[in-house]
C-alpha cells in the first residue's frame, strides 16, 4: 500500500505527460518512466492511445520494453535482447527489482540459487545487497534473509501490473478466502451453541445435586 | 483501476502468513 501511495503521484504525472507525447517523445517518456527509481507500475501508461500507437513504428521497441516492465522479468529481457532497446543501468536495476516482485508472487521462500540465477548475480553478498538496498529498503518486499538455509523468506511483496489471465486466479483466491471464512464462522457459531448447551446441562445437573442434598439434610 | 488491482494482487498473495517449519510445528 505504501508503495502504491508513493507512486500514485508519479503515475499521474507520467500519464499527463503521455497524453500529449507522440512518437519519439512518447518513446523518451517510456525511457524516463522505466528508469525512475520510485515507479514500479506501468499499466496506466500502457493503456494510453499515444503509447499504443507506437506499435508498428520505429519506436515499437520502446512499447515492447514498456510491456516487459509491466509484466516481464530480467530473464525474459535476456531471451529477447535483440528485439529490445538496450537498457541503461537504472533500467536494469528496475527490471531486477520487478523480477524479485514476480518471484515473491510465486513462493514464500525464495532460494538464493534461484534468485542468483534469475537476477544474474554471481555471489551471495551482491544478492543480499540487492535484496536489502534495492528491494527491502525500497519498500517493494519485506522479509528475512536466512544464510544457513540460503533463502529469502518473503513476508510481503508489492503487487505488479496484472498479466492477462491473472485476474481469474485472483478472483478464485478471494472466493476461496470467502468460502473458508464463512465455513469458519459457521463452525465457531456451532461451537458457541455447543458451549451454551453444555453450560445449561451443567447448570441443571448442579441444581439437581443441590436439591437432592437439601432433601437429605431436611430428612436427617 | 490498476492501482487497486495491484494492491489486491499483493493482498491475495499474503496468505499463508508464515510458511516456515518452526511455525508449522508451533501451529500444530
Amino acid at each position, binding site marked *: 500500500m505504501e508503495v502504491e501511495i508513493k507512486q500514485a503521484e508519479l503515475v499521474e504525472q507520467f500519464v499527463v505527460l503521455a497524453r500529449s507525447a507522440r512518437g519519439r517523445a512518447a518513446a523518451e517518456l517510456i525511457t524516463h518512466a522505466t528508469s525512475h527509481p520510485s515507479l514500479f507500475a506501468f499499466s496506466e501508461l500502457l493503456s494510453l492511445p499515444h503509447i499504443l500507437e507506437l506499435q508498428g513504428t520505429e519506436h515499437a521497441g520502446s512499447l515492447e520494453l514498456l510491456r516487459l516492465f509491466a509484466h516481464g522479468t530480467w530473464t525474459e529481457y535476456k531471451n529477447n535482447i535483440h528485439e529490445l532497446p538496450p537498457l541503461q543501468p537504472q533500467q536494469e536495476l528496475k527490471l531486477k527489482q520487478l523480477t524479485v516482485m514476480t518471484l515473491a508472487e510465486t513462493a514464500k521462500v525464495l532460494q538464493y540459487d534461484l534468485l542468483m540465477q534469475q537476477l544474474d548475480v554471481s555471489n551471495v553478498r551482491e544478492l543480499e545487497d540487492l535484496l536489502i538496498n534495492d528491494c527491502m529498503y525500497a519498500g517493494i518486499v519485506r522479509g528475512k534473509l536466512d544464510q544457513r538455509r540460503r533463502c529469502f523468506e518473503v513476508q*510481503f511483496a508489492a503487487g505488479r501490473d496484472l498479466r492477462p489471465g491473472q485476474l481469474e486466479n485472483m478472483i478464485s483466491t478471494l472466493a476461496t478466502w470467502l468460502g473458508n471464512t464463512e465455513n469458519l464462522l459457521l463452525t465457531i457459531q456451532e461451537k458457541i451453541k455447543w458451549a451454551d448447551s453444555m453450560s445449561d446441562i451443567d447448570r441443571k445437573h448442579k441444581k439437581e445435586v443441590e436439591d437432592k442434598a437439601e432433601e437429605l439434610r431436611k430428612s436427617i | 483501476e490498476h492501482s487497486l488491482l495491484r494492491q489486491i494482487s499483493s493482498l491475495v498473495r499474503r496468505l499463508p502468513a508464515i510458511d516456515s517449519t518452526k511455525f508449522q510445528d508451533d501451529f500444530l
Partner: protein
Amino acid sequence: EEQVSIIREGLAELYENEEQWSKAAQMLSGIDLESGIRMLDDTYKLEKCVKISLLYLEDDDAINAETYIKKASFLVNNCKDEALNLQYKVCYARILDLKRKFLEAALRYYELSQLEKREVGGRRIDEDELQQALTAAVTCTILAAAGPQRSRVLATLYKDERCSKLKIYPILQKVYLERILRKPEVDAFSEELKPHQKALLPDNSTVLDRAMIEHNLLSASKLYTNISFEELGALLGIGPQKAEKIAARMISEDRMRGSIDQVEGVIHFENDIEELQQWDQQIVSICQALNDVLDSMVKKGM
C-alpha cells in the same frame, strides 16, 4: 576575603581574554564559596560554579567541569535567575556530551531545543540556537549505544517536525528506520562531529566507528534470521572475529537478542516475539491491508 575575591575575578577575566581557560577557572576556584565569614547567596555561588565549569569545558576538561557542575546542581533549584538556570542546563548537556554519556546529553539538548521563552535574562534566544541544540540532540542520539533506550529517543526526535528541516535529517531517518548505513553516509556525518565525538577508544576504534558498527549490527538483526561472521564482517566493514566480539557484547548487555554458534561461525538473531505471535501480527497486517483496499474502493465510489 572580599578583596581577594575581587582580585581573583579580575585575574580570571584577564586569563579569559587571553583564552587561558583552565587558568581562569583555577583562579576562580580559589574563591572560598563556603566561607563562614562572608554571607554569600546561592545565586552568587551558582554563578561562580557554572562559570568555572564553562571555562574548564573550553579546554575540554570534562572531569573538572563535572566537579563544578555537580556543586552547581545543589544550588540550581533555589535559583530564580532564568539566564543562569539556562547556562547551567547548557553546561550540563555539554559535559555529558564530552564525557560521552550521549543519551543523557541528547535528552538535555532536546529539552533545551524546546525552550518556549525566547528572551531570557534580557538576552534573545534565536531560532539558530534552538536548531543547534536540536542538531546536537540528534547527533548525540545517533552516537549513543544502540538498543531499546536509544530507539525511544530516536522515535521522539523523528516524530518532531522540526527535525525534518535539519541537515542531519537523512541520517536520522535511516537510523530510526534501522537501516544499514553505508560508508559515504557515515563519512558525511563524521564531518559534522566534534573532536571528542571522533576520539579513539582503547580498542583502536573511534567513538563514531563503534556507534556505526553497533547500529549496523542491529540493522542486520532486523534483516537476517542468521548470518555467518564472515558475511557479517563484510557487511560491517570489519573482520569476522571483531564482528563476533561486538555481537557477543551487545547480546550480553541485552541490547540485541541472539545466540552465537562458534562451531558453525554463525549468529542467529532471535525475534523478540514467538512464531505464533509473529503470525498474529502478520494477520493483523493483512487485515489492515484489506481495510486499506476497501477504503480505496469507497473513495473511488465503488
